[in-house]
């Protein structure tokens, strides 16, 4: 399941729903991305997450589908927020449930790596030194590339 929303999410509740009623699940791996208060040398007071409504959902559906094709998952979840967030706020949750831990780990890692390079979001940081668009990180491209078959 994928969700794109401005509202916060409750990680514990979401993970509980992911496994509820399915007792074949032996492993749940999750990733939560949070807004940090410092990047590089500047203090961040807020981050504005802009996205491309429609394309975002489409890309997330595609990425989740691919993960479920590649790994034997019982369930998976991607929640990505947009809008104005403060330090410590949740940005993204990725969770994968499987019978075995390797599938759960690999699928979760795959999903967040792909989100970083494929989900159409852009981050504007409000810093002590003015507003600044976060630049794409070549390390993210490299991380994504290793999942290519």
């Amino acid at each position, binding site marked *: 399941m994928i969700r794109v929303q401005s509202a916060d999410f409750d990680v514990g509740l979401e993970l509980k729903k992911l496994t509820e009623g399915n007792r074949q699940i032996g492993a749940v791996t999750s990733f939560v*991305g949070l807004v940090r208060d410092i990047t590089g040398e500047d203090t961040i007071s807020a981050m504005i997450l802009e996205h*491309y409504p429609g*394309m975002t959902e489409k890309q997330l559906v595609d990425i989740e589908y691919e993960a479920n094709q590649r790994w034997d998952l019982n369930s998976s979840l991607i929640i*990505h927020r947009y809008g104005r967030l403060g330090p410590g706020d949740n940005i993204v949750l990725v969770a994968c449930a499987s019978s075995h831990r390797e599938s759960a780990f690999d699928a979760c890692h795959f999903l967040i790596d792909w989100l970083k390079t*494929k989900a*159409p979001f852009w981050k504007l940081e409000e810093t002590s030194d003015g507003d600044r668009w976060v630049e794409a990180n070549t390390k993210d491209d490299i991380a994504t590339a290793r999942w290519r078959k």
Partner: protein
Amino acid sequence: MNLLYFAWIRIKMGVSGEHIDPPKNIKDIESLIDWIKQRNTISNEAFSDISNIRFAVNQEYVDIDHPVQPGDEIAFFPPVTGG
């Protein structure tokens, strides 16, 4: 043809999108960008460094030689920074 702009391209263009009716000889993203740029200084400036711009046609990532046609939703944005 609906054009959409995101992040700093949106800021530079001063609008988040526009409906355009380009001349018939525009067949792909590259010729579309050339046409957008020649319209005015703002557009020319916003699209001055194409290496920092990514393209989507109908919500799928495409390369610069991807064909475009009337009715398409065409988006221009910087490399994404989600997650």
